[in-house]
């Protein structure tokens, strides 16, 4: 009897070999597709329905059901909303301010909204952080509809269910402080950096708890993101990571594990090879997007060294192969990643991060078709 989508995913994430490698498109904020790229995919499948933006500043869309079914995607995701009390406020002609007071702009012709103003930038003190007007974690906007959507997926479908919770503190603190001040604080004013991390963590933990209280029992995968890597290495030294970041991440992981036994999907861009043992220690079950073109992140390194201790979600190169490769190169890429990651289970196939404008639709189709065909176990 063939496995259900959910059974397939659970086996894979338990490091057992299911019938084939599970496929993801769109079940997280960073494993989907940009609205511009999506138009070609829609056209390919003859879908004319309107787009729904899933992630505002990345401009990632909800993928229509017929496409997900045609590609035999194994996951469906639920994404909590934002606080009712702090809706987004338009700024100028092409910008908006979010619930944290962070302002982003999307100039004409550019595919995303980018950070332009951070409310806690410049010469601030701990007092400014303490007095910061955080949105109320108990705001009903954070949890509205979450349980109903999860119940619907659980009772009426056989898909593996993912649920998004806020990032612990890395991104929010960067957006609040501005990237330059954030980096300089880490070297020049660690106390201030720590205070900001702690305040951010307090808020995100409270929101995560609210969300998990209504849905933690219904899900297969819980996910959030903290980008810790650049192209050639981590964004901070492993020593600083272990001293300042890891204990705080541990608190967040413990909070999450208190409220759900779902697999923990940790989104972390870049070259994070030097931090993987630490992440495993924290309780990461599966790492995403596995930026294979970044230093020491190739599947031929990660598969042998971490297979069995860590699952991998993503892995099909988006820095060169998906946008610029031929269809044959995409197929070869998919086969290579499956060979490196899939034996023994522990691999979920998808693009490294969201599919971007400029990726030929033939390459998207080739990725999923080859993934499904070549991902049949046993992997030859």
């Amino acid at each position: 009897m063939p496995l259900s989508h959910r059974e397939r995913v659970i086996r894979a994430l338990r490091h057992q070999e299911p019938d084939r490698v599970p496929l993801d498109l769109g079940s997280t904020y960073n494993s989907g597709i940009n609205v511009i790229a999506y138009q070609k995919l829609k056209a390919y499948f003859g879908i004319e329905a309107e787009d729904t933006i899933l992630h505002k500043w990345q401009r990632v869309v909800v993928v229509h059901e017929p496409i997900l079914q045609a590609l035999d995607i194994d996951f469906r995701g639920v994404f909590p909303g934002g606080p009712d009390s702090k809706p987004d406020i338009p700024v100028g002609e092409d910008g908006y301010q979010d619930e944290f007071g962070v302002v982003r702009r999307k100039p004409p012709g550019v595919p995303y909204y980018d950070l332009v103003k951070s409310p806690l930038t410049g010469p601030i003190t701990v007092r400014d952080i303490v007095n910061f007007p955080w949105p109320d974690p108990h705001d009903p906007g954070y949890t509205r509809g979450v349980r109903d959507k999860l119940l619907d997926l659980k009772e009426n479908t056989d898909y593996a269910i993912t649920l998004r919770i806020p990032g612990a503190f890395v991104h929010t603190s960067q957006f609040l402080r501005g990237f330059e001040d954030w980096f300089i604080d880490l070297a020049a004013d660690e106390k201030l950096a720590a205070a900001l991390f702690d305040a951010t963590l307090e808020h995100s933990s409270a929101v995560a708890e609210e969300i998990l209280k209504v849905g933690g029992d219904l899900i297969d995968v819980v996910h959030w993101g903290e980008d810790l890597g650049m192209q050639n290495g981590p964004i901070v030294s492993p020593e600083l990571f272990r001293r300042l970041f890891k204990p705080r991440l541990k608190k967040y992981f413990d909070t999450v594990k208190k409220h759900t036994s779902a697999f923990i999907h940790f989104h972390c861009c870049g070259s994070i090879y030097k931090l993987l043992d630490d992440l495993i220690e924290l309780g990461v079950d599966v790492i995403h997007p596995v930026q294979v073109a970044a230093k020491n992140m190739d599947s031929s390194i990660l598969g042998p060294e971490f297979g069995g201790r860590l699952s991998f979600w993503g892995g099909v190169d988006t820095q060169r192969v998906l946008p610029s490769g031929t269809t044959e190169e995409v197929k070869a890429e998919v086969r290579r990643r499956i060979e490196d990651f899939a034996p023994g289970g522990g691999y979920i196939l998808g693009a490294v991060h969201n599919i971007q404008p400029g990726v030929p639709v033939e390459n998207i189709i080739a990725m999923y078709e080859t993934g499904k065909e070549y991902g049949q176990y046993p992997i030859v």
Partner: protein
Amino acid sequence: MSDYLNTITGAVQKGNEKLVVQTVAKALGAGIAPQEILNKGLISGIQAVGQLFKDGEAYLPEVMISTRATKSGIEKLKPHLAGVDIPKKGTVVIGSVKGDMHDIGKNLVRLMLESNGFEVHDLGVDVSADSFIRAAQEANAEIVALSALLTTTMVYIPDVAKALEQAGLRSKVKIMIGGAPITRQFADEVGVEGYGEDCASAVDEADRLVELTRRR
């Protein structure tokens, strides 16, 4: 004498702004030539940091406080450099191209270039070709440095090159480019002379381009 210079180099590498400024003052008081302090103290320190960054042994926080310390050291030296004939390495106009709001990398390149003896005019983000041209003309720049983080904005780079040509400046000005999607291959394809893989390599590249300008 060399103790002061060594202290400065070490303080730059540790990003100790206060110590850099204090020791620059002491070195000046001891009669060490400002040019020596700049080259053997400050620039030598920031170059070491740049190399460590390239080698993956220093990270962004360290690079940022080191450039900040170097900049403060240079500010302390400036009044003493004013009367002296210090040949600055070259003049650079830098900015993130039209549509691109990203500037951390560009700011790092600016800081590294300044720390290494270039005069840099930073036009900020979302900069039009016209703005680049005006600034290059006003500053008599040898180099126009363009930053782009997006594949959608890097396509503006040839537009800037074309605009410089139309303004009659292209033969006088070298263009260097950088940013996440940028490659040497792309630079060659669009006909720009320079490419920097990171903020440390950008300095080497700027040195090379200025040398090319001088050779003519």
